[in-house]
C-alpha cells in the first residue's frame, strides 16, 4: 500500500511538472514561429494584370498528389458549400488533402485571416480599403459562390405568395408601414386579401454580409433609406428586434406572428418559410431562385473590377428575370505566403483552382448559384498571381 501511495504522489508531482513544461515549450515554440514575417515583405510584386501571368491553364486536378491539412474560417453562408466540395475533393481528387473550414462568421473570418491563424478566410463581403490597409500585406478577394438574400415572413393561416417593391420593403423596415393590410403592400399584391396584423421587421444583430447586401439594395432603390439608414455590415436600425446569424433571424420570424425578416435563401427554404418576390429594375416581381440569382450574377459580373470587389444587388433592367438582392462569398487569400507554408498553400490554391471549375457544379444541389464563366476567368487570373516564397503556385 505504501509504495502505491508513493507512486500516486510521485505521479501527481510529475504530472504537474510535465504540464508546466508543456506550457513553457508551447510558448517558446510559438515565439520562434512568430518571428519570420515573410508574409508582409512581398518580393517582386506580381500584379493582378493578365500580362503578369502565363496563359497556360493548368488541369483542374493539378493538386491530386498534394498532402496537407489546410485550415480556413469565416462566413457561415459558404460553410455548407465549402464543406461539401472539400469532402468531394478529398474523396475524388486529392486523397492526401483535408480542407478544414470552420464557420465562425464573416467578421471572425476576417479577424483570424488578419491574425494569420488560418490559411484562408471567407467573408460575405469583400475587404474594405481600410481592412486591407490594416492587414499590411497584399491580399486577394476571391469570389467563390453566389446566393440570394430572401425576404421571408410569417403570417398565420396565410397561403398566398407575397410580392414586394423596394419602396415597400424600405417602408416596412423604416417603420412607415405598420400593418400587413397597408395600402403599399396591397398595391404590390392587388389580388390578395391581407390581414389586419401588425408587422414586426427583424434584422441581424451581428455585423453581417447579408445585412450589407440587403441594405445596399435598399440604399440603391430608396432615397429615403439612403439618407436615414444607409448601407453597411450593421446599420442603425430604426426599429424591430434583431437575431444573431441567419439562424437567429429565421427562428425569430418562425416564432413571431406578423414577422418579416431577411435571411440567406437556404435558411428560409430549409425551414419551410415563405419567401417574397421582389421587384427588380425592369419592374418585374422575381422570386429568389437559383436561376434568378444566376441572372443577377450574369448582369453584374461584366462590370466587376479586376480586384473582384463588387456587389450583385440591383442588376440593370437589361436582365428582366434577375433577382435584385444577390450576394457573394469571397475567399480571402494572401498574395504571397511564406515558404515555410509551401505544402499547405500549394494544396489550398490547387483546391480553389478545382473549386472554381469542377467544384462549381455542386453549388446548385444545395441552393447556391455558381459563378458566371466571365467571372471564373477573372478569378483564374487572381489565383495565378498567388506566390509562396516568391514562386508562383500555379504554372
Amino acid at each position: 500500500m505504501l509504495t502505491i501511495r508513493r507512486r500516486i504522489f510521485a505521479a501527481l508531482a510529475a504530472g504537474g511538472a510535465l504540464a508546466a513544461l508543456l506550457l513553457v515549450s508551447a510558448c517558446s515554440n510559438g515565439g520562434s514561429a512568430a518571428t519570420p514575417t515573410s508574409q508582409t515583405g512581398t518580393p517582386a510584386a506580381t500584379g493582378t494584370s493578365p500580362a503578369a501571368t502565363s496563359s497556360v491553364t493548368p488541369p483542374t486536378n493539378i493538386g491530386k498528389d498534394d498532402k496537407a491539412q489546410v485550415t480556413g474560417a469565416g462566413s457561415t453562408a459558404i460553410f455548407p458549400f465549402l464543406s461539401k466540395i472539400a469532402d468531394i475533393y478529398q474523396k475524388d481528387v486529392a486523397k492526401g488533402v483535408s480542407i478544414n473550414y470552420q464557420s465562425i462568421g464573416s467578421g471572425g473570418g476576417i479577424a483570424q485571416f488578419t491574425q494569420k491563424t488560418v490559411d484562408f478566410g471567407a467573408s460575405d463581403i469583400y475587404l474594405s480599403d481600410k481592412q486591407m490597409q490594416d492587414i499590411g500585406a497584399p491580399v486577394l478577394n476571391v469570389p467563390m459562390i453566389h446566393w440570394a438574400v430572401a425576404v421571408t415572413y410569417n403570417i398565420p393561416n396565410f397561403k398566398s405568395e407575397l410580392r414586394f417593391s423596394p419602396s415597400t420593403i424600405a417602408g416596412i423596415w423604416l417603420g412607415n408601414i405598420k400593418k400587413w393590410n397597408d395600402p403599399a403592400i396591397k398595391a404590390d399584391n392587388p389580388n390578395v386579401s391581407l390581414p389586419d396584423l401588425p408587422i414586426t421587421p427583424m434584422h441581424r444583430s451581428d455585423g453581417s454580409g447579408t445585412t450589407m447586401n440587403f441594405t445596399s439594395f435598399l440604399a440603391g432603390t430608396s432615397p429615403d433609406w439612403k439618407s436615414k439608414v444607409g448601407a453597411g455590415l450593421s446599420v442603425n436600425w430604426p426599429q424591430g428586434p434583431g437575431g444573431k446569424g441567419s439562424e437567429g433571424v429565421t427562428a425569430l420570424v418562425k416564432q413571431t406572428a406578423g414577422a418579416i425578416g431577411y435571411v440567406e435563401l437556404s435558411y428560409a427554404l430549409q425551414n419551410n418559410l415563405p419567401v417574397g418576390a421582389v421587384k427588380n429594375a425592369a419592374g418585374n416581381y422575381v422570386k429568389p431562385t437559383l436561376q434568378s440569382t444566376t441572372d443577377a450574377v450574369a448582369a453584374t459580373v461584366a462590370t466587376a473590377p479586376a480586384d473582384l470587389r463588387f456587389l450583385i444587388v440591383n442588376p440593370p433592367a437589361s436582365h428582366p428575370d434577375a433577382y435584385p438582392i444577390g450576394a457573394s462569398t469571397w475567399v480571402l487569400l494572401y498574395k504571397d505566403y511564406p515558404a515555410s507554408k509551401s505544402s499547405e498553400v500549394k494544396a489550398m490554391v490547387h483546391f480553389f483552382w478545382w473549386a472554381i471549375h469542377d467544384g462549381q457544379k455542386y453549388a446548385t444541389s444545395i441552393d447556391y448559384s455558381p459563378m458566371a464563366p466571365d467571372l471564373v476567368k477573372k478569378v483564374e487570373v487572381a489565383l495565378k498571381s498567388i506566390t509562396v516564397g516568391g514562386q508562383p503556385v500555379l504554372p
Partner: protein
Amino acid sequence: MTPALTGADIRGRHLRRRQARDRLMRALLWCSALAAVTPLLLLLMFVVREGLPAFRPSLFTEVPRPLGESGGGVKPAVVGSLIMVGLGTFIGVPIAILAGVYAREYAGSRLATVIRFLIDVLAGVPSITIGLFVYGLLVAPMHTFSGLAGAVALAILIVPTVARVTDEMLALVPRSVREAAYALGVPRWKTIARVVLPSAKVGIATGVVLGVARIAGETAPLLFTALGNRTVSTSLVRPMDALPLRIYVYATGPYRSWHQQAWAASLLLVLLVLGFSLITRLLLRRRAPGPD
C-alpha cells in the same frame, strides 16, 4: 368527576400535532427534491427522444458526410473531445490538487485566504474569456489553432473546481489523524502524502469527476482555441474537433439532418459524462473500505 386532561392526553395531542407538522414538512421537502430533479429527468427524456433516431454506431465510426448525403458521424469530435478532455485533465488536475494541498496544509492562514479568493475568482471567470486568453497565449503566437490550445483552455477551467474540492476535503480530515502521524515521528510531507490525502481521496475524486464533466461540455473556450475539424486529427498542433463544438455548429445550421446529428451528439455527450462519473464512483466504492 369532571373530565380533566391528563398528562397523557396532552402529550398525545402534542404528539399528533408534531406528527402532522412532520408529515407536512416531509411532503414539502419531497416536492422540492422532485422539483430539483424534474428538469434533469425532462432534459434526459428530451435528449433521448430527439437524439435516439440518429444514434447509430456510425455516429462514432464515420466522419461527417457532404451535405445531401445521408449518414455520416461525428468521429472527429469524439476523438478530439477524448484527447482534449484527457490532456486538459492530465495537465489541470495535478496543478489543482497540489494548489489545494498548499492552500490547506502549507500556506499561512492569510496567504491561504488570498489563494482561496483567487481560485474563486478563477472559477468565476467566464469560460469564453479563458478561451480568448489562451488564444492570445498560444494560438496567435503559434499562428495556428490547435488541440493543445484547446486542452490548455480546458485545463485552466478544471483547476478551480478541483482545487476548491481538494481544499475542502482536506479540511474534513480530523486534526487528530495528523497529530497521530506527527506523534509517530512522520514528517509533515509524508503525513500529507500518505495519511491526509488518502483519507480524502474519495472526495477529491468526486471533485475531479465534476470537473471533467464540466470541461467535457464546454463550447466557449474551444471556439477560439481548438476551432474544430471535419477530419479525424490527432495532431496537437492542428485544429481539433470536439463534441460541444460540433453540436453548436450543427444546431445553428439550416439543415434538418444537421439538427438530428446535433441531438444525437448531445445524447452521446450526456452518456459519456454519465458513464464516466458512474465508473469512477463504482471504482471508488470498491476501493474505499478496508483498514488502510
